[in-house]
C-alpha cells in the first residue's frame, strides 16, 4: 500500500504545474502522456467534436503544465478574439469593423506589452529621469509571443476578408492551443490550419512514420547536440574575457550551432507531432546556414516568423512599393520589430537593427554583387561573410550585456591563436565531435535528408524501435541532471 501511495503522490507531482519544469517534447512525462494520447485520439477521431474537445483539453493541459494559471489568459484571449471576429462579419460599417480590429490589437498587444515589455519600458523611463527602478514582479507566460501573433494575424485576416471567421470557439481554441505549436511555434496561420481541422483527415501510416522520423531528428538536434554543446558555450558566455581567443571563438561558433539545433530541433518535433495527428505545419527552417546573404538567411531561418513579419509589418509599411529608400527603411523597421519580439532588451533591438541594416546593405549592393560573386571563390566568400555576420550578431543575442558581447568578440579576434587547438581538442573531444556531426549534417544536400526520411518510413519496425531507443539512451547519457529549456520558450 505504501508503494502505491508513493506512486500516486509522485505521479500527481509529475502531472501538476512546476514553474521550473515546463513540459518538453523530449521529456519522459510528455512521452508517457503521449502514449495515452495516441490511442484516445485515434479512437475519438471518428467523431469530429469529440476529437476537437479532446485535443483542446490536452492543449490547455499542456499549457497549464508549462505556464500554470496563465492558461486562463490563453482561454480569455481566444474567447475575446473569436467573439470579435464573429461580431466583425455581422457589422456592415467599415468604421465599426475597424474598431473591432483596434480593440483586439489593443488587448493582444496590451497583454503582451504588459508581461513582456513593462519592466523594460519602466527601466528606461527610470534611467532617463535618474529614478530608483524597482522591477515589477512579472512572470512571462510561456509562448505568449507565439500565440499572440497567431491571434493578431487571424483578426487582421478576418478584417481583410482573407479568411472566414471560425464558426465555433472550440475550433478557434483548437487553432490557438494546438499543443505541438503552442509554446514555441512554428507560428501557425489560420487560413492554412483551420481548414485542416474541419477536414479531420486521418494520418496515413507513412505520415505517422515520417512524423516519427522528424521527432527523432528533433530530439537529436535539441536534446543530444544542443544541450551538450551548450554546457561549454555557457562557460564562455558566463565569464567573458577569462578564456583564450581560440576558446572564445569556439564558444561563439558553438552558440551559432546551438541556437540552430535548439530551435530547429523543437520545430522538427512540433511538425512531426502534428503530422502524426494528421496536420501539416509549414517548414520553419531550411538549412539557414547555407545562406550566402542575409536576405537568403531570413528566407531560411524561422520562416514562420519571417513571413509573419513580411505580411503584417513590412507590406503594411509599404514594402518595396514606395521607392528604394523607403524599402530600406521598411526592412530596417521590420527587423527592429523582429528583434524586439525576441525580448525586451536593447541587445535584441540592436540585433534586429543590425540585421535590418544588413538586409538594406545587401539589397543596395545586389546589382554589384551579381557581377562579382558568381564563381566558386565568390560564393565561398559570400557564405563566409554572411556566416561571420550572423555568428557575430548571435553574440549580442546571447551575451548578458552589450559590454560582455564586445569583450567576447574582441577576445575572439585579438587573442586568437591556433596553438590552443590541440589542447582544446584533447579537452573537448566530444564537444568537437558533436559540432562536426551537426556541421556535416547541415552541409548535406536536402535530397539526402529526403531519402533518409523515406528510408526510415520504409524500414522494418525493429529498425525504428532500435533507432528510437538509441536516441533516447543518448539523451539520457548526455543530459545534465535537469533538462535544458528550449531557448525559444522565453520568447
Amino acid at each position, binding site marked *: 500500500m505504501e508503494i502505491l501511495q508513493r506512486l500516486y503522490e509522485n505521479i500527481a507531482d509529475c502531472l501538476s504545474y512546476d514553474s521550473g519544469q515546463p513540459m518538453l517534447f523530449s521529456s519522459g512525462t510528455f512521452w508517457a502522456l503521449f502514449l495515452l494520447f495516441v490511442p484516445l485520439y485515434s479512437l475519438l477521431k471518428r467523431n469530429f467534436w469529440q476529437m476537437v474537445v479532446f485535443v483542446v483539453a490536452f492543449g490547455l493541459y499542456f499549457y497549464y503544465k508549462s505556464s500554470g494559471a496563465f492558461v486562463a489568459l490563453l482561454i480569455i484571449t481566444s474567447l475575446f478574439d473569436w467573439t470579435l471576429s464573429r461580431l466583425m462579419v455581422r457589422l456592415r460599417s467599415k468604421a465599426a469593423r475597424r474598431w473591432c480590429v483596434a480593440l483586439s490589437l489593443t488587448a493582444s498587444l496590451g497583454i503582451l506589452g504588459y508581461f513582456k515589455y513593462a519592466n523594460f519600458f519602466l527601466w528606461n523611463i527610470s534611467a532617463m529621469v535618474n529614478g530608483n527602478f524597482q522591477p515589477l514582479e512579472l512572470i512571462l507566460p510561456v509562448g505568449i509571443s507565439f500565440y499572440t501573433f497567431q491571434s493578431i494575424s487571424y483578426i487582421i485576416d478576418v478584417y481583410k476578408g482573407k479568411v472566414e471567421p471560425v464558426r465555433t470557439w472550440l475550433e478557434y481554441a483548437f487553432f490557438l492551443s494546438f499543443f505541438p505549436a503552442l509554446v514555441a511555434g512554428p507560428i501557425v496561420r489560420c487560413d492554412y490550419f483551420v481548414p485542416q481541422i474541419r477536414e479531420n483527415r486521418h494520418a496515413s501510416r507513412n505520415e505517422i512514420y515520417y512524423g516519427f522520423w522528424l521527432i527523432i531528428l528533433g530530439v537529436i538536434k535539441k536534446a543530444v547536440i544542443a544541450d551538450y554543446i551548450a554546457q561549454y558555450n555557457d562557460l564562455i558566455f558566463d565569464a567573458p574575457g577569462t578564456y583564450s581567443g581560440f576558446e572564445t571563438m569556439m564558444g561563439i561558433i558553438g552558440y551559432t550551432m546551438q541556437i540552430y539545433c535548439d530551435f530547429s530541433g523543437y520545430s522538427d518535433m512540433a511538425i512531426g507531432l502534428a503530422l502524426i495527428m494528421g496536420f501539416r505545419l509549414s517548414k520553419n527552417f531550411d538549412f539557414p546556414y547555407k545562406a550566402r546573404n542575409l536576405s537568403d538567411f531570413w528566407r531560411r531561418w524561422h520562416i514562420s516568423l519571417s513571413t509573419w513579419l513580411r505580411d503584417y509589418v513590412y507590406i503594411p509599411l509599404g514594402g518595396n512599393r514606395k521607392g528604394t529608400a523607403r524599402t530600406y527603411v521598411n526592412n530596417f523597421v521590420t527587423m527592429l520589430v523582429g528583434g524586439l519580439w525576441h525580448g525586451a532588451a536593447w541587445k535584441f533591438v540592436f540585433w534586429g537593427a543590425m540585421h535590418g541594416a544588413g538586409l538594406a546593405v545587401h539589397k543596395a549592393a545586389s546589382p554589384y554583387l551579381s557581377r562579382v560573386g558568381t564563381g566558386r571563390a565568390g560564393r565561398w566568400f559570400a557564405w563566409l561573410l554572411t556566416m561571420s555576420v550572423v555568428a557575430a550578431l548571435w553574440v549580442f543575442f546571447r551575451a548578458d550585456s552589450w559590454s560582455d558581447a564586445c569583450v567576447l568578440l574582441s577576445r575572439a579576434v585579438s587573442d586568437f591563436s591556433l596553438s590552443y587547438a590541440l589542447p582544446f581538442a584533447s579537452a573537448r573531444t566530444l564537444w568537437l565531435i558533436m559540432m562536426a556531426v551537426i556541421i556535416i549534417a547541415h552541409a548535406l544536400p536536402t535530397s539526402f535528408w529526403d531519402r533518409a526520411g523515406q528510408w526510415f518510413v520504409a524500414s522494418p519496425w525493429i529498425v525504428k524501435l532500435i533507432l528510437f531507443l538509441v536516441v533516447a*539512451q543518448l539523451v*539520457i547519457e548526455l543530459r545534465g*541532471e535537469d533538462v535544458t529549456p528550449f531557448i525559444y520558450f522565453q520568447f
Partner: protein
Amino acid sequence: MKNYLPFWLIIFVSFVIIFALSAFDGISIGSYKPKSSGMYDNLTRQRSISDDMPDEEKAISDSTAVAQQPVPVDTASKVILFIGDSMLDGLSPRLAAYAEQNGHTLYTVIWYSSTSERWGKSDKLASYIKRIKPGYIFLCLGANELSVKDIIAKRDAYVKKIISDIGDIPYVWIGPPNWKEDTGINRLIATNAATGCYFKSDGMTFERGKDGAHPTRSSAAEWMDSVARWMPLHCSHPIKMELPESDFGRPARVYVHQPDEN
C-alpha cells in the same frame, strides 16, 4: 486506429525498456552500463527523509564540531589539488583567484559527469596525489548522485575509498549544490568525512545556469567565497584564504577527463 497501432507499440515498448533499465541498476550490455533515466526512482522515491538513514544533523554537527573552537590558520603556501565533477568549471576559476592571492599553487582535475563511484573505482586520485604531491585537497563531488536510490549501500565503500586515498592530507569536501532533494548523498559524505572537512552546500541559494543545475559563473564564485568564509571558523585545517583582488584566476594546470573514461 490500425494506422497508429505499430507506431504506438514502438513507443510503448521503448518506454517499457527505458523504465525497466531505470528499475534494475545492475543491467549491462558487455562492458557498457546504460545510465538510468531515473524514471523508476522518480516514481517510487520517498517524499520525506526516512529514519533508517544516518542522522545527517548529527553527522554534520560532528564534521563541523570545531565551529566553537576555531583552529589557527595555516599560513604556509600550499600546493592545492582540486578534484571533482563539472561543478569545478564554475568553482575552479574562483579558487584559482584565491590561490594566486594567497601564494598557493592550484592544480585542477575535472572529470565530467563523475561520481564517488567512478573516483572510488579508479586510481586517478591516488595517481594525481602521487604526481602532484598536494599539501591540501579540495573535492566537489556528489552532484551526479542526487537521485541514486539505496545510496548508502551503493556508494559508502567508494566514499570511504576516496577518503582513504586522501590519507593524511588535509582536505575540504564541498557538497553538491542541490537543485532537488537528494536520496542521501549529503548524509553519506557528511558521515564519512573527518570532522570539519565537509562543507554542506545543500540549502544554499544559487543562480542556476540554463541547465537548471550548474550555478552560473558568478554564483559559483559566491559559492567558493562561502567556502573560504567557512574555513577559518569551521574547518579542521584552515589555510590562508584572503579575499582575492581579481574575480577569477587560472590554475597552474587543468586536467580534464571525459565522462566515458575509466
